[in-house]
């Protein structure tokens, strides 16, 4: 397919613990399809999208979270990861991202990490605000949280099962600091939904 796509199969960092779990079956086209799903999700907050994912997964990662990592994270992004050693080895091998503490990370996959403990960027560089990849139990449209804001015509309903207890309270604080803030990609099975910092959430 390509003679000069060094990142196509993931960057191997020195000393990476090897993994037997694969990345995307088609590193180029699966990453593209997965990105389009994330882009669609981020553009239309609360809309549930399905992502292509690796044929076999390390324990500790949902198919969706694995796809999001493969799509967006690489040796040039700082990652905070707390998903167990097998998943960590898989991420090191396929993404090669330097691992850092939650507050210093651009991408965070750590159920312990609170929304408000992550980097919100600053007024001049709000794009430095982190992306939180949050594993939840289930995502469904049509009922639940009432979302409004850019990307949503009137309102959108999203039911999230298994979100952290204080998530909605934290979200109010997160949204109040826009344009700074953290953006969230919710993952459940092979489904994702996104909550950009600009979206308002009311409990439904």
């Amino acid at each position, binding site marked *: 397919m390509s003679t*000069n796509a060094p990142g196509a199969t993931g960057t191997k960092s020195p000393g990476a613990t090897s993994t037997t779990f694969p990345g995307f079956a088609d590193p180029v086209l699966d990453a593209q399809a997965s990105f389009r799903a994330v882009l669609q999700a981020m553009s239309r907050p609360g809309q549930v999208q399905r992502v292509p994912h690796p044929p076999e997964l390390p324990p500790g990662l949902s198919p969706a979270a694995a796809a999001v990592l493969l799509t967006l994270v690489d040796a040039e992004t700082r990652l905070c990861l707390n998903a167990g050693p097998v998943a960590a080895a898989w991420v090191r091998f396929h993404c090669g991202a330097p691992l850092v503490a939650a507050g210093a990370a651009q991408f965070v996959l750590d159920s312990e990490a609170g929304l408000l403990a992550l980097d919100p960027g600053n007024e001049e560089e709000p794009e430095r605000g982190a992306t939180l990849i949050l594993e939840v139990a289930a995502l469904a449209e049509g009922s639940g949280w009432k979302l409004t804001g850019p990307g949503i015509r009137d309102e959108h309903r999203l039911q999230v099962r298994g979100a952290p207890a204080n998530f909605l309270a934290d979200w109010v604080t997160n949204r109040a600091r826009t344009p700074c803030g953290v953006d969230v990609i919710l993952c459940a099975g092979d489904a994702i939904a996104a909550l950009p910092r600009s979206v308002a959430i009311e409990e439904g």
Partner: protein
Amino acid sequence: MSGYNFAYLDESTKRMIRRAILKAVAIPGHQVPFGSREMPLPYGWGTGGIQVTAAVLGPTDVLKVIDQGSDDTTNAVSIRAFFRRTAGIATTESTDAATIIQTRHRIPERKLREDQILVYQVPIPEPLGRLEPRIAETRRMHGMADYGLMHVKLYEDIARHGHIATSYSYPVMVNGRYLMSPSPIPAFDNPKMDQMPALQLFGAGREKRIYAVPPYTSVKSLDFDDHPFRPIRAPHACELCGSRDTYLDEVLTDDVGGRIFVCSDTDFCAERQAMKEAAE
């Protein structure tokens, strides 16, 4: 094309651009710096739009490229050929059939849909640039939402000319927060950006910035209560399709004042002509 990756860019470059696009979508109207690459087309000729399109495009997409509203202008032809060659994807001249539309200087007349993405080529992303050329300074102004300078400029226009004398690249406020350049589209097209169902992505290659307007987002052209924004078009009907509400090109037919007006959006005009013919 052998020797190159799908859609030309290598995967790590695509990831970098994709990360920038997602942040741009999450912060509507904010210019996100990105590591713009040298492309095999010159800076100023759509390298930003091309990089955005290349990072977004997949094998099932259908791409339309327009320049000045037309599919057949030379640079549009060249960019379309670039993607046919590097991504092997289908291209179209039909706005309706396209999933991704890359444009320079126009928004199509046909209302865009939720399943479409509009990619703008942007020469100068900084709306304050003509008033304050220093990037460090304009970045501070965006951070503080300090847009007094732009209001003063527009007000001076009114004082001097009786109305706002900006006819293209007319600045807009996005989601009530960021002042944004709509790229050099005619001000006539500005209202189409407001609450558009399609996602709008903007790529500035030479200036290394990406920004975005998510679907259904407020985009307001700057104006004053007593001097509301007025889109400008030539007050004529299209010579070919008779349209009186589309943007028109002025075509000189001789050198003694002969001229006709035709739709700038060639696909829209052709569709209307076909409908007219069918009705006759």
